[in-house]
């Protein structure tokens, strides 16, 4: 069984090696099948584990990774409910997206096609490493692995330098977070002499408040980087440079949720530090609202989805921040369904439009691509929390948790949710309803995507629709299967009292009414023939993302470059090297001067000799004075 567990990550790695090394030999179909096949197998293996309930609190150790007299970091996996859940999401959704990609990436030449799948497999491998690891170091290995994979995939079309910049930005911002994560790991190592979850969590009580706060905050910094929270969120929208399925897999379903996984994983520590919890909640909320506001006026379909991802992640952090870890994880799952669906749908749309991503050029695609339309609609409903869709359940639970925590938090979160519905419907209307605003040849080009793309859409649509029932509140006749499932690892969030049941009904009603109003408003505003997408005033500010990127350039990037330039050209060249060369030049100069003493005149020579004899005498008779003087100087 241990070998089997080991196979789950290794299979994608194998796929990476095979597809990557033979990318010039393999045909498109071949590499597609191989890549998807390996993921598929590991998905099946994961299912086996899931159903055979092969969970254990203690880790499976394979070998010692780093060991010394102070600490021992073993290469070991932790197979429990939490990691299994994530493995299911990763392999499952990953598999679907692989299948989808086989069709989506058709136009690529074979070796690049193969390269794409190799990267994708490598990503899955790293992601599995991340969730499987039984200590923070292994998690970190996966953590950085997914980072580099996202770098490679964002910059997949490396001819375009914009994409490369986006890729680099993504990786570097992740790195900033990683610094925090690493520091946390070192801190943990120094405190516990081990980074194993089991050791850390069982001895966590020994930590002082300062330590635990420090560790958790640093961990959270890591999460901020990876899960695109304020202030490190700007890379995610740019990351849309990558192929759309990549955005679906990495920047919606899996990688960006690593932060949530990490916090859920170390809930023991976080629960010990209320300060950190508040910080998490506040930052999550802020991100949720900010991203949502920005999403309101974006014209690039993928950008909108990106910002919505950011804001959804914010929701999850709110959940974590108020201590509802399971809820956060639950939202990760549902979100992975509908957001992946949205992206794939968007991908299908873009595919249909022949690469066009600007929603101002779209419109009225409902007839042309029905499957995409319906699935997309389901996704939109889910994300905006239409009753009994998966999104409704998870979000509703987040709101309840927030409500239980504090009133203002609740209202603000609700506000963010409303905004979510707004921008999602806006996109939906602009894309599918109204009249077509694109060019002629685009109109002719329009066509439904091949089954390899539509089938994953449908599967995900189903999941998005019914995925929530594993955690339906009792009042709707549901049961907390999900929480119970996770209970051994993550303490379930418990609903408190009867009053909340009432709240549930209010919420339900509120949601329905709210969505109806929003739907109508959006239909009035956006389901139109003509749409410019030009904005003024505050809308313009939002359309320009609050000018956050410009701000960063102004206060961080440019100063840094100037400092670097200053060091390179002034300090290094003129300063340090200048001194070194200066010494040499001085010696040569003095050589030119000293040699003039050798005047060639015998008279001068003898004169100097006589004088120096007298000088020597003076020195000799007064040397005590001289030595004393020198000693006074030095």
């Amino acid at each position, binding site marked *: 069984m241990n070998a089997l567990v080991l196979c789950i990550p290794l299979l994608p790695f194998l796929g990476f090696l095979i597809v990557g090394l033979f990318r010039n030999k393999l045909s498109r179909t071949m590499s597609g099948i191989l890549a998807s096949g390996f993921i598929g197998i590991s998905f099946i293996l994961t299912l086996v584990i899931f159903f055979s309930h092969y969970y254990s609190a203690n880790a499976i150790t394979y070998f010692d990774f780093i060991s010394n007299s102070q600490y021992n970091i073993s290469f070991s996996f932790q197979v429990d409910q939490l990691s299994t859940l994530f493995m299911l999401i990763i392999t499952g959704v990953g598999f679907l997206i692989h299948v989808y990609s086989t069709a989506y990436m058709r136009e690529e030449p074979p070796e690049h096609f193969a390269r794409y799948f190799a990267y994708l497999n490598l990503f899955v491998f790293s992601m599995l490493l991340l969730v499987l690891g039984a200590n923070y170091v292994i998690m970190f290995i996966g953590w950085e692995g997914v980072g580099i994979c996202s770098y490679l995939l964002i910059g997949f079309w490396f001819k375009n330098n914009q994409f490369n910049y986006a890729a680099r930005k993504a990786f570097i911002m992740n790195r900033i977070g990683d610094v925090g994560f690493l520091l946390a790991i070192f801190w943990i190592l120094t405190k516990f002499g081990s980074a194993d979850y089991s050791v850390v969590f069982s001895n966590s009580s020994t930590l002082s408040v300062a330590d635990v706060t420090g560790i958790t905050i640093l961990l959270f910094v890591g999460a901020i980087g990876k899960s695109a929270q304020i202030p490190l969120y700007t890379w995610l929208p740019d990351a849309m440079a990558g192929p759309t399925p990549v955005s679906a897999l990495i920047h919606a379903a899996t990688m960006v949720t690593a932060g949530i996984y990490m916090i859920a994983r170390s809930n023991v520590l976080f629960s010990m530090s209320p300060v950190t919890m508040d910080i998490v909640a506040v930052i999550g909320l802020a991100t949720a609202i900010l991203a949502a506001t920005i999403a309101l006026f974006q014209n690039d379909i993928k950008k909108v989805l990106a910002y919505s991802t950011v804001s959804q992640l914010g929701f999850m952090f709110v959940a974590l921040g108020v201590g509802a870890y399971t809820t956060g994880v639950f939202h990760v799952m549902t979100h992975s369904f509908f957001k992946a669906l949205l992206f794939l749908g968007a991908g299908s749309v873009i595919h249909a439009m022949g690469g066009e991503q600007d929603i101002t050029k779209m419109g009225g695609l409902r007839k042309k691509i029905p499957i995409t339309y319906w699935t997309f609609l389901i996704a939109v409903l889910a994300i905006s929390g239409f009753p009994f869709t998966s999104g409704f359940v998870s979000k509703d639970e987040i709101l309840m948790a927030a409500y239980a925590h504090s009133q203002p938090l609740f209202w603000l979160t609700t506000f963010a949710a409303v905004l979510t519905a707004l921008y999602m419907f806006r996109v939906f209307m602009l894309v599918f309803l109204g009249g077509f605003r694109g060019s002629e040849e685009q109109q002719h080009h329009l066509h439904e995507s091949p089954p390899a793309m539509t089938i994953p859409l449908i599967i995900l649509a189903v999941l998005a629709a019914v995925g929530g029932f594993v955690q339906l509140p009792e009042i709707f006749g549901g049961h907390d299967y999900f929480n119970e499932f996770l209970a051994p690892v993550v303490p379930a969030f418990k609903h408190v009292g009867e009053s909340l049941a009432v709240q549930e009904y209010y919420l339900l009603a509120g949601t329905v009414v709210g969505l109806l109003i929003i739907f109508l408003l959006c239909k009035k505003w956006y389901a139109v023939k003509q749409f410019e997408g030009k904005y003024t005033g505050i809308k313009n500010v939002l359309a320009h993302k609050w000018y956050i990127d410009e701000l960063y350039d102004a206060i961080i990037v440019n100063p840094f470059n100037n400092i670097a330039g200053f060091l390179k050209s002034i300090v290094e060249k003129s300063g340090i090297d200048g001194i070194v060369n200066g010494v040499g030049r001085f010696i040569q100069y003095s050589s030119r001067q000293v040699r003039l003493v050798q005047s060639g005149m015998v*008279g*001068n020579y003898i*004169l100097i000799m*006589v*004088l120096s*004899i*007298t000088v020597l*005498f003076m020195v000799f008779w007064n040397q005590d004075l001289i030595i004393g003087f020198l000693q006074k100087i030095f």
Partner: protein
Amino acid sequence: MDITTIIFWFLSVLALFSAIMVVTRKNPIFSVLWLIVVFFAISGHYLLLNAQFLAVVNIIVYAGAIMVLFLFVVMMMNLDNLPVVNKNTWMKFLGVISGGLLLCILVSTSKSATDMNLKTIVLKDGDIGLIENLGKVLFTKYALPFEISSILFLSAMVGAVVIGKKES
């Protein structure tokens, strides 16, 4: 103020004066002649100090041989019509200054050797200067240097040949 003292002073003044003349004369020939005077004065001192042998040798070797040699050379290249180069006076000045400094140092050491002044030299007395005494010492204790000085002369001779011979 006996006679020896007077002679001492006379010879000293003569030596110094003519030495200065040696240095200051424009014409080399005069310098040579004045130098001979110096040597005579010094020989006189030797006599006062009962170093008769040295006095004689000094006259013969220096005043006789060497100075004549000088004189010949000076005559041979009649140096009166030397091309006059710019005489740099500061060089002269510095020369005198540094010479004076050296003098100060030498004198100061002899002065600072306080009990030096107590030491006196009895003139017109003692026989170490006599030729037989010197001869004894020279051929016993100093025989080796005496032999070795022959090498010196040989090399000087060879040198004179090598340098002096006209190239054909």
